[in-house]
């Protein structure tokens, strides 16, 4: 049996509709109109012990909603969730002992007190034995460099430091599963890198199963073999990242800067995927047309000032999947 099982999960939010004016405000005291919003629809997946899965999607895709249902703080509208044998919302406290959670935009630390005080509090809350607590603190401090700010009040920490403290806090009680909701949001490149290194390490060394949401493709590229791509509350793709790369492996992107006035730009054998003024991004299949052929085509009609050829970025691949669906892509390309 998998560690995490999600079957046909739905979450519908009821949103009270605001009514116009004073009359509306009065009416809404007695009778409210609601609209509904499907944040998650028919999502199913399973995650095995020790896996590290990237849960990807644009803003509003339903990532946080899914994580909340997995942690038990949100009740599904329908469908089934099991986390290590527990139904999270029915046994929320028991579930809380076996999971660690970090919401990138929130903190579980006491704002006004030095970070160390929050760790000590968690030690009591989860009744962590002394020896284990010291051991964990030593390990985390080592990788995350916590000592430099353990005695600083949390409100004075930089975002990067706060996130480091937060992730350490979520792991103190040796959870089996770690849920990270946008753990790198707002961090600078270096801080992101450090965070990723730590996540990789606890997954590898401690066998902690990790589910992480992000809309930063670099996170996925550096961390996860498997990704679940969602959009509008639905799963668009669930599988190895490598497979997507392979599917797009024959693809190249040609970026050209053109001279002069350019209207209605199009070139046979390539697809314009992005334009910024006279800079055009063209995607082409290198088995169907070579780069030099393509450049020749273009220079017949336009003057080229500059050009680069690139492997498609994961971001581009994913945007493509969002727009066309994975199915259409597989058919067309493989």
């Amino acid at each position: 049996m998998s560690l995490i099982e999600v079957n046909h999960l739905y979450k519908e939010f009821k949103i009270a509709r605001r009514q116009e004016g004073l009359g509306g405000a009065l009416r809404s005291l007695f009778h409210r109109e609601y609209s509904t919003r499907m944040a998650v629809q028919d999502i199913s997946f399973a995650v095995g012990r020790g896996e590290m899965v990237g849960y990807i999607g644009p803003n509003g895709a339903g990532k946080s909603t899914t994580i909340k249902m997995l942690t038990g703080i949100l009740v599904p509208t329908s469908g089934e969730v099991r986390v290590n044998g527990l139904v999270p919302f029915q046994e929320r406290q028991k579930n809380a002992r076996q999971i660690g959670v970090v919401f990138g935009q929130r903190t579980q630390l006491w704002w006004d007190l030095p970070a160390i005080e929050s760790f000590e509090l968690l030690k009591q809350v989860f009744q962590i034995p002394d020896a284990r607590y010291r051991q964990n603190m030593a390990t985390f401090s080592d990788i995350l460099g916590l000592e430099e700010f353990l005695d600083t009040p949390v409100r004075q920490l930089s975002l990067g430091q706060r996130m480091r403290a937060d992730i350490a806090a979520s792991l103190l009680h040796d959870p089996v599963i770690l849920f990270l909701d946008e753990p790198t949001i707002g961090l600078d490149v270096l801080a992101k890198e450090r965070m990723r290194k730590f996540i990789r390490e606890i997954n590898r060394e401690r066998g902690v199963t990790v589910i992480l949401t992000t809309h930063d493709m670099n996170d996925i590229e550096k961390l996860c073999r498997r990704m679940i791509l969602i959009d509008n509350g639905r799963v668009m793709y669930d599988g190895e990242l490598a497979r997507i790369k392979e599917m797009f492996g024959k693809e190249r992107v040609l970026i050209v800067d053109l001279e002069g006035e350019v209207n209605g730009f199009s070139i046979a054998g390539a697809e314009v995927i992005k334009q910024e003024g006279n800079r055009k991004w063209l995607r082409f299949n290198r088995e169907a047309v070579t780069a030099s052929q393509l450049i020749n085509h273009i220079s017949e009609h336009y003057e080229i000032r500059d050009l680069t050829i690139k492997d498609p970025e994961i971001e581009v691949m994913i945007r493509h999947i969002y727009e066309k669906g994975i199915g259409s892509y597989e058919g067309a390309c493989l």
Partner: protein
Amino acid sequence: MGTFKMYLEFSRKSFQRAAAYRFDVWTRIVGNVLFLFMWGFIWYGLYHGKSSVEGVSFQAMLGYILVSQALQGIHGAGTPLWEIQERVRTGDIAMEMLRPYDYTTRMLFSDFGGIAFYFITAIVPLYTVLFLVLNPVVPTSLVQLGLFVVSVILGYFIRYCIELTFGLFTFWLVETGGVEDIFYFSISLFSGSVIPLWFFPGWLEQVARYLPFQAIFFIPNSIFVGQLTGPAIWYAFMNQVIWLLVCYLILRLVWNRASMKIVIQGG
């Protein structure tokens, strides 16, 4: 046992937090004393040289407002109303649901911590001096003092339940200023914290006697200055215990509804 130690850790952390905001304590104590003197002078003026009004001596009235201000200082040291409103507004309340403890109990122990700091560093030294200097009516026996303390503790729990309940109304309202106003108005008027119920006009006294607020300050204050004696004290205790049960049940009910709302509607 382990659970109790865990909750106690919350008291410790709040104590430390209060210590980190020492300056806050000093400004609050200044406000507290200013109000004390304001009420002192008002009552002095109202007594107008008379030795007693409705059977209450001025020295007893002085004892009443002194003990009342001291208790209000203690009650005001914690800020559960404000804290819960913040947590709901920011959505941090969800983080509390991810912990293996009861939120309302943990808040209570946090409140203890803040109160303990304020009590030790401000209330005790200041009011010891004030009582010695102003020489008001105080309990004349250890029994009376003991009954007073029991009554204070019951009153504290009642206020805690009411305040948290009001705080939880945040879940259902967009604008919460009104809730705060109603809470602070009711507690300052009906609790007898500034005007004892025996000076209320008859109809208002009747209203106040059927509300829970009088069980917070009026009863302990009256025991303190000896206005409540003999079997009347036992009736007063019964009144407090019943109100505590009622307020606690309401708090649990509202909290259950609120947590339902979090887990169904996402806060």
